[in-house]
């Protein structure tokens, strides 16, 4: 039914009459709209009557076409009248307030007019975010202090559950990632060091890099991606379903009940994960050294043993623990910031991972500089 309608114009002493006949529906609304616009534009000034007596069927798309007539007449300040509509069409028309439809819908947040105002708004948003972060850290430290003074207050079952999720479940991916990083580092080092005949020092490179830099960073990022996101989504969903409100109304501190078990679990799991990460990285390096650099297993591990100091391993551990607390903490914070519904949970989960990785990289730079002076 491509063109089931037609529009004819007649003129008499009372003004112009447009007769619309046939069907106005979703299927032919596009050509109908064009035809109506053309017809109204070509009309002489004066009152307009639209005769709908020949209109057999009209749906919402058809009503939109009639609204367009109304809008065009409104724009040119022409008076408009619909006549002769059949009962069905009249029923539809009586439920429409065409003048209201012609007005634009109100915007909840009108866009800011210029760049300076927008920059200002973004600045205020950043300040509010920073403030929220500081308040969160304050609350978290208070909760941590309470837990340290009252170790029995921590729910042991929750802690074990999260240790399993953050620690044990992360072992396979930690091993895989760090093993391949060890292999990559060894290849990279080998291609350079071989030129100087310094093959043996590949062991130093892999050992120190894995223990001090790459291991903590990679494991931290894994925690941010796995657990930070999980914590944000979990707490965010609890927020949406009023569970966090219920906790607060019961007089429970969400920091202590929701945040602490997760952060403590990350804090405990992280050093263990880092040990596994460093070990698998060094083993990855060993395989490359044996296969391509003619080093013996003994020579490689002996060299690693001589290169690594306890202080280097401690540096890695200190970093790792800090990264874990940052990633888990920011995940929980984002979760608590969720307002509204599912969309908000998604947004803050994303934000948890991004902020987590960002904080880890910043903290790593600060630690590396700090340790230079110690």
């Amino acid at each position, binding site marked *: 039914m491509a063109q089931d309608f037609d529009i004819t114009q007649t003129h008499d002493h009372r003004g112009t009459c447009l007769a619309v006949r046939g069907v106005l529906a979703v299927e032919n609304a596009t050509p109908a709209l064009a035809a109506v616009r053309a017809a109204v534009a070509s009309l002489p000034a004066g009152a307009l009557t639209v005769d709908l007596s020949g209109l057999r069927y009209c749906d919402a798309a058809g009503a939109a076409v009639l609204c367009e007539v109304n809008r065009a007449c409104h724009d040119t300040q022409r008076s408009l009248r619909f006549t002769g509509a059949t009962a069905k069409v009249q029923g539809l028309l009586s439920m429409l307030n065409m003048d209201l439809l012609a007005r634009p819908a109100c915007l909840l947040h009108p866009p800011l007019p210029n760049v300076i105002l927008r920059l200002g708004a973004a600045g205020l948003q950043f300040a509010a975010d920073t403030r929220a972060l500081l308040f969160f850290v304050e609350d978290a430290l208070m909760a941590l202090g309470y837990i340290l003074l009252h170790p029995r207050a921590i729910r042991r079952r929750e802690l074990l559950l999260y240790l399993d999720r953050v620690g044990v479940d992360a072992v396979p991916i930690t091993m895989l990632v760090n093993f391949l990083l060890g292999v990559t580092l060894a290849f990279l080092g080998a291609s350079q060091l071989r030129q100087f005949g310094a093959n043996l020092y590949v062991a130093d490179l892999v050992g120190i890099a894995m223990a001090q830099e790459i291991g903590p960073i990679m494991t931290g990022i894994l925690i941010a991606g796995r657990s930070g996101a999980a914590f944000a989504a979990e707490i965010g969903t*609890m927020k949406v379903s009023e569970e966090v*409100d219920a906790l*607060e*109304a*019961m*007089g429970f501190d969400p920091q202590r009940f929701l945040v602490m078990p997760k952060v403590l679990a990350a804090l405990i799991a992280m050093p263990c994960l880092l040990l596994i990460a460093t070990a698998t990285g060094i083993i990855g390096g060993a395989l490359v050294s044996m296969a391509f650099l003619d080093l013996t297993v003994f020579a490689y591990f002996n060299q690693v043993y001589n290169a690594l100091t306890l202080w280097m391993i401690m540096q890695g551990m200190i970093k790792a623990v800090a990264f874990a607390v940052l990633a888990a903490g920011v995940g929980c914070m984002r979760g608590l910031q969720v307002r509204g519904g599912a969309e908000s949970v998604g947004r803050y989960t994303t934000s948890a991972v991004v902020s987590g990785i960002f904080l880890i990289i910043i903290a790593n730079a600060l630690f590396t500089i700090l340790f230079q002076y110690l």
Partner: protein
Amino acid sequence: MPDDVLISARDLTTGYGEQIIHEHLSFEVRRGEIFVVVGVSGCGKSTLLRHLIGLQQPLAGEVWLDGENLTASSGAARTRILRKFGVLFQSGALFGSLTLAENIELLLDEYTRLPQATKEVITRIKLALVNLSGYENYLPSQISGGMKKRAGLARAMALDPLLLFFDEPSAGLDPISSAELDRLILQLNTSLGATIVIVTHELASIFAVAQRVIMLDKDSKGILAEGRPADLRDHATNPVVHAFFNRELLSAAP
């Protein structure tokens, strides 16, 4: 403050950011009564509830509960005030990772030093009170919406509070479950002497349980009417109040 006043809202002004929801709102809830806050959608019933239970701080004014200032309290004093009441949230707000029994035991763990066996008995008593005997080890996701509400009520009653808040108790319930919940509310009031504050716009429920209602107004940001629901239905002169309690269109002039 007279002894029989349990909650007193004093000159409360509430809102989010620049949007004011209530202005200079004052009312009192007496000990042992069933007090219902009604109003059309969007008039701030739930916001008022969030203020009464301390989830939100008012922009101005105070909420007093059992002779103590909730608004100005913090730390241990606040926890002590919060312990005096229980809240049933709209969807129950049970903790999804815990079974029904654990949801209730959580409160007993935190606030009492009872032996485990006693806690279990108390938990079973509370669940039996809301007709959920036998469902102790179910997770919230395994039971229906009406059961979740009842379980939420059992949790709200875990510490035998002298005051219970209900947020839209009949929302999303079929008429039978809704009537059951009404009966339970009346029972708690008469048998246990609990004071009950309900936020709702469900007329049937209001007439069934309410002893006194206040109707909030969106435009004046204050209280539009106060009294017994039947009186408001029959004698209200304000057209909005009349239309609300008689379930009529606002434009229908008498």
